[in-house]
Structure formats: structure tokens, C-alpha cells
């Protein structure tokens, strides 16, 4: 754990130097924070009048209402996108060429479109009176396409011997999928699936732009409608309060993903050394091969996702 690729374990001189760097960087960060707090106070962002709103029961109820709206949208989008993802993944793994091609076109198109543009289209063209559905359907189409790529990569990453063995004992394609491939794929891809769900959760805030009354919209409404104190509107308090809520929500979901990743890694540690090294062909742990494979067959982008 101690050695890094980049440098040896530091000796006494390097340790001293690192300590100096550490002190300097801590001072710089503290200075930055102090500057921010000073400037915010100086420009009147901490005036009591701007924060008063949050003391009222009505206000708190509205924030919770906004939070529930966000969570409801997220829940709908999550369920629908997982279902769509499964369907599209099945389509892309189909034996019929036209099914494969048409689903590929659908998946690639929705992955390439900016989500906001999709939501605008749905909103203006079909759902102007129900912004929630514009948001949910937009999120579903986009995230469903991404999830389908995750599923597909997961299934492709299960060693070929598994499906060959399954076919050899006479299972049909559906049985091979549901009994052999999907369970392993889902398990190995769970961290990716959950981090895509975090993306879905974050993107519910796009509803704000089509005036859907989710959490961020509620926040902006508070900021705008609180009368200003000495020419300062309550935008900064809003950003601080609502930003924290969002970050906490996403962190909770992200750490679930991290935890699952950790626990699957732990199970790998338990495997015999020969298997962990990847030399065995019979029982290679899916999580390991899933990590190695996706890039090779143009599966979903490994690593973090931003949208």
C-alpha cells in the first residue's frame, strides 16, 4: 500500500520537504476559504433577512415537497430506464440481424443526443402541460440507452465457456440468459449501474429549466421571492442550502456503489491465488473479467460518467 508507481517511500529529507508542501497547501486552502467567507459576508450574503425563510414550517414543508418530487421523478426514471436498458440490451444481443441493427441505431442516437435537447423537444412538442413526463421520458430514453450498454458489456464479459457449457447441457437461449449470464453480469456491473443511477438523480435537476417543481425549482422560487436586504437577493443562501441537499443525496447513492464495489472485490480476494491471477479458465470471477473486457469490444466507457 505504501509504494506508489510514481515515487519511492519518502526518506527523511523528502518527508521534511513534503511536510513543508503540506503546510503551504493547507495555508493556501484555508486562505481561500477565509477569502470566500469574507467576501460573502462583505457582499451581504449572511444578512439574517435572507435566511429567515428557512425557519418557517411552511418553507420546510415546501422543501420536503420539492425533495419528494425529485425523488419521485428519480424513482420513475430509474425503474423505466432499467427496464428499457434490459430490453435494448436484449435487442442488441439478438440473433436476428435487423433487430440488432435497429436497436443499435436507437441506442447510439439517444446516447449521442444532449439530454436537455431531448427534454426540450418532449416538453414543447408533447408535454407542455405535464413537465414531469417530459423529464421522466427524456431521462428514461437517455439513461436506458446507457444502461443497455452496461448490461451488454456485462453479459459479454462473462467468459464464453459459461454459455458454451450451458448450451452443451441443452439449455435454450432464454434459459442461458436468465439462469447463467444475466445473474453474473448484473453482479459484476452493479457499481456501474448504480453510478449511472447517480447520474439519473443529478439530471432530474434539469427539470428546473422546464419549470418543473422539483427541488432546484423550489430553491430558485424561494431565492427570487424573498424580498432583498440592502439590494441583495437570497440566491447564495439558496445555493448553499439546496446544494448541500443535492450533494448529500448523491453521496448517499454513490457510496452505495462504492460499497458494492468493495464487497465484490473482497469476495475476489477469497479466491485461490491462481484464479485471481487470471490463469484459470473455468471459474474466473466475473467481476474481474468484466473489468478487463468492455474496452476491447467497444462496450460502455469504463471509468466515470459525466452526463
Amino acid at each position, binding site marked *: 500500500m505504501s509504494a506508489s*508507481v510514481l515515487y519511492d517511500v519518502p526518506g527523511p529529507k523528502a518527508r521534511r520537504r513534503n511536510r513543508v508542501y503540506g503546510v503551504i497547501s493547507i495555508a493556501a486552502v484555508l486562505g481561500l476559504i477565509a477569502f470566500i467567507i469574507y467576501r460573502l459576508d*462583505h457582499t451581504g450574503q449572511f444578512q439574517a433577512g435572507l435566511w429567515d425563510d428557512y425557519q418557517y414550517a411552511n418553507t420546510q414543508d415546501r422543501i420536503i415537497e420539492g425533495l419528494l418530487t425529485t425523488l419521485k421523478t428519480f424513482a420513475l426514471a430509474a425503474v423505466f430506464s432499467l427496464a428499457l436498458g434490459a430490453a435494448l440490451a436484449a435487442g442488441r444481443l439478438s440473433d436476428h440481424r435487423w433487430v440488432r441493427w435497429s436497436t443499435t441505431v436507437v441506442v447510439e442516437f439517444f446516447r449521442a443526443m444532449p439530454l436537455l435537447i431531448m427534454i*426540450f423537444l418532449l416538453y414543447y412538442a408533447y408535454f407542455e402541460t405535464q413537465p414531469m413526463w417530459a423529464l421522466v421520458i427524456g431521462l428514461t430514453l437517455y439513461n436506458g440507452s446507457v444502461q443497455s450498454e452496461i448490461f451488454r458489456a456485462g453479459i459479454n464479459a462473462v467468459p464464453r465457456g459459461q454459455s458454451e457449457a450451458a448450451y452443451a447441457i441443452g439449455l435454450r437461449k432464454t434459459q442461458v440468459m436468465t439462469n447463467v449470464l444475466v445473474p453474473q453480469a448484473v453482479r459484476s456491473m452493479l457499481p456501474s449501474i448504480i453510478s449511472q443511477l447517480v447520474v439519473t438523480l443529478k439530471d432530474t435537476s434539469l427539470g428546473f*429549466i422546464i419549470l418543473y417543481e422539483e427541488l*432546484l425549482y423550489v430553491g430558485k422560487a424561494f431565492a427570487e421571492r424573498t424580498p432583498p436586504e440592502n439590494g441583495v437577493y437570497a440566491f447564495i443562501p439558496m445555493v448553499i442550502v439546496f446544494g448541500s441537499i443535492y450533494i448529500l443525496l448523491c453521496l448517499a447513492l454513490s457510496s452505495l456503489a462504492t460499497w458494492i464495489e468493495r464487497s465484490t472485490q473482497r469476495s475476489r480476494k477469497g479466491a485461490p491465488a491462481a484464479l485471481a491471477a487470471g490463469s484459470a479458465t473455468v471459474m474466473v470471477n466475473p467481476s474481474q473479467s468484466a473489468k478487463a473486457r468492455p474496452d476491447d469490444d467497444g462496450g460502455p466507457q469504463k471509468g466515470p460518467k459525466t452526463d
Partner: protein
Amino acid sequence: MNVLTDNFAAFRDGFLKTVELTALSTLLALVLGILIAAFRVSPVPALRVFGTVWVTLLRNTPLVLLFLIVTLGLPALGLKGWDSFWLAVMALGCYTSAFICEAVRSGINTVSVGQAEAARSIGMTFSQTLGHIVLPQAARTAIPPVGSLIIALTKNSAIASGFDVMELGALQKELNADAGYNILVIFLWIAICYLIITLTLSGLFRLLENRMAVAR
């Protein structure tokens, strides 16, 4: 009644604005991302903590909220006079930098310790180890994810339309407000504009990937 020919100038301007916004944000994201990645792998604990906090906060903040933070926060800090375009570059660049950082860092982590140890044992200095051994290998792993991050950035740049940047997304709003055009046709043309950018990008990155590929 053709949306594209009637509004060709608007489409061209919107397209160029999106390209410009993407290019500058990418630049900022790469610079910041690599810097923060350097922080995160550095031997100084304080810098590592700073890097971790930066990545954790930005990865868990919705981009719309980050736009609000930047556009409202900077004037509140007394840093006035920024054009909305540059504010958008800042929001997009900072947001993407967190993801770039992680891609770069995991690239560095895939280089096996033995490689660097071997380099040091034959007497290479830190900068030689980094420049000749670690970074070339790390880049090879990091390029595909960085490519898809930049494509994601292109798509995310549409959010700037809500913050006074006249790019392609804003065009969709603008043309919707005018009567007479079919919304689906407007959407189709804007979609094609985005596809041109994203397909070009993925082509470029595929090329880069092939050039850097080695038999392993």
C-alpha cells in the same frame, strides 16, 4: 419554409458557439483535471485531501446547480464583469475536470509498480520515470474514457443555453418561440449539428487510440 435555410446564420452561429464552448471547456477541464490528478497521487496528504474533496463535491453536484453556483457565486465574491460565456466555460470545465481527474488517476494506477521500480533501479530520475515510463502507459489507458468524457461535455454544453449563451440549445428555444416551424424538424437539425460534433470527436479519439496502440 425550411428551418435550416431560413435561419442558416443562426444555425451557423449556434454551431460555432457550441464548438467554441466545448473546446475551451475541454481545455480547462484537461488542465484542471490533470492538476487535480497530480494532487491526488502526490506524496503530500493535504493536497491529496484537497483533490479528493474537489472530485467528490463536483461529481455529486448536478451541473445545473454548478452553473447557478458559478453565475451567482462569482459576482457575490466580488469577481464581477465575467461574460456569461466564460462563466459557462468555468462551470463546464470545473465539472468535467473532476471526471478527467479520475480517468487520469486510474490510468496512472494501471501502470504496474514494477515498471517504475525498474526505471528507478536503472537510475532514472523522477521526471524521467514520469515522462518516459509512467505517463505514456497511463495515457494509453486514459484516452478512451477521456474521449467519452469530452463527448459528454459537448452534450452537457447544451445546459449553457439556460444561462445566456447563444449556442445550439438556445437556438431550439428561440426557434420554438417563433411560429410556423415544425418542432420535430427544428430538433432534427439541431440533433444533426450535435452529431457532427460528437462523431468528429469520437473519430478523432479512435484515431488517437489506434496510433498509440501497442501489442500487449
